[in-house]
């Protein structure tokens, strides 16, 4: 009964949430993976994430995340998950010049290998042995800034600007419907909403280069999406999780999980 109330509350939050979005990392099947209270699961995974941010102009971002995760079975069937990993960041055409008098040495912002952390919680209510519904909340934060430098000329005068991307974070709410089919294979699908933002800080203003002209806070272009996935048991206690999310862009990933 308590689980239903929590799920209803989350559905309510989903419905009234502002229309902004961006997800980070897989949500996994709605049903907690751990074996009861005090149970633990660990996993490693890869996630390809693409999204569009906007603040006047639109900016497509791309991330490749590799992470390690730890899940813990909490009270009332809830599971708490934490992830740490490394990710790159690419902003497509961030240094592209819209001004004929400004030329740049490259068009994309790109940096590799920054640490990020994710925490999440999920609860599940089974209708029967096959079907069930669950809800989750999940958020990510990048601990350090991404930075890249672009050089070029403005009216024949050379310049060099470093752009820093700071405070990249996101939060996601969603609910999922799950079907457990023979061989303990779990298939799930559901909607989610999300909010994400980042700050772009150029070391100098360069007219004609959108991201390097003024400090900018960008937010996700749309705020909702759908996700679907499958979790398949492998040998010796391992499980494979494949998931895809679609909002403004498609994001996909895979994780191999071990349940203690």
């Amino acid at each position, binding site marked *: 009964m308590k689980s239903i109330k929590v799920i209803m509350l989350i559905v309510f939050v989903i419905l009234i949430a502002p229309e902004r979005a961006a997800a980070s990392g897989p949500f996994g099947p709605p049903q907690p993976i751990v074996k009861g209270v005090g149970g*633990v699961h*660990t*996993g*490693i995974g890869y996630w390809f994430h693409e999204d569009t941010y906007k603040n006047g102009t639109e900016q497509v971002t791309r991330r490749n995340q590799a992470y*390690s995760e*730890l899940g813990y079975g909490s009270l009332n069937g809830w599971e708490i998950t934490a992830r740490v990993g490394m990710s790159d960041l690419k902003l497509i055409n961030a240094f592209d010049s819209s001004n004929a008098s400004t030329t740049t040495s490259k068009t994309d912002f790109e940096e590799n290998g920054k640490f990020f952390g994710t925490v999440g919680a999920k609860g599940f209510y089974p209708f029967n042995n096959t079907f069930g519904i669950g809800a989750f909340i999940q958020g990510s934060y990048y601990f350090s800034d991404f930075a890249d430098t672009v050089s070029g000329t403005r009216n024949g005068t050379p310049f060099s600007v470093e752009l820093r991307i700071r405070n990249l974070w996101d939060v996601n709410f969603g609910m999922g419907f799950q079907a457990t089919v023979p061989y303990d294979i779990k298939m799930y699908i559901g909607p989610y909403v999300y909010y994400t933002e980042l700050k772009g800080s150029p070391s100098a203003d360069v007219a004609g280069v959108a991201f390097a002209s003024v400090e900018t806070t960008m937010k996700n272009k749309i705020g909702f999406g759908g996700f679907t996935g499958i979790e398949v048991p492998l040998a*010796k*206690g*391992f499980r494979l999780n494949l998931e895809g999310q679609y909002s403004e862009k498609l994001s996909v990933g895979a994780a*191999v*999980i*071990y349940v*203690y």
Partner: protein
Amino acid sequence: MKAFSFPVLLLVFFASGCAHGPDPAVSLAPPISPPRVRQVLVVSDPVQIPPTPPEMPVKSETGKVDDYGDIEVLEKVSEEAKVEIADPLEPFNRAMYHFNDKLYFWVLKPVAQGYRKVVPETARVGVSNFFANLAFPIRFVNCLLQANFEGAAAELGRFTVNTLWGIGGFLDPASSKDISLSKQDEDFGQTLGAYGIGQGFYINWPIFGPSSPRDTVGLLGDTLLRPYTYLSPWYAGAGVWTYDKVNDTSLNIGDYESLKEAAIDPYVAIRDAYVQYRLKKVNRKGGNISKEDAGSPEKK
């Protein structure tokens, strides 16, 4: 230089270890209280051998079955008890034994007890798992050197599983019932033993504890394969090693005390247990055991 040497020496002083590799169980020195010492002592002490069940027929010295169920076991025990090692440096070794004993009771044990009070056991076991995982190169290379390819594969599997799904080695899923990859306790000393090199004589090193020329050479090889040896500056590596030993000791407080209490002469008990334990480890993989290791009476 002197000013910084002192804290470093102190750090090292805090530590304890064994002279032959990553497994604390092989160390019978006071600074470390290995969990398996008592198990080894059972072999060397006939009084503690569990009696054979009465319904099991047992042969007497003449080979006839008699009612005394202990005899065959005692024969085996006395055979194993013959395994001794030369001890030409006994005065030095005894002095080092007392030094290590004081080091344990005055420094290491109090530090480990304090550490145990503030760090929960689960975390300490996790740290122990982490350092065991870090010592993977020692076990892997020595499995290969002993042509134990199955063991090498198991070690590689353990390292992969524990690093990726064991949160960098803090957890040990590889030992679970499902995966069941057991740790291969191999070190360079055992590899040399497997190649037929004998123990030589007994040496009790300060801080490092019981050893032999063979196992001392083995220790050098193990050190080269231990990743934190290469930390810079060097005392960072010494600090990590010290922490590893304090953590291990915190999980085994009481074992050394029990051993000491049970023995008439703890020095002799530790020496005999050490040589038998090492022999057993070399023997286990079917390595060639030299006559010396096999127990030729050559003590002193």
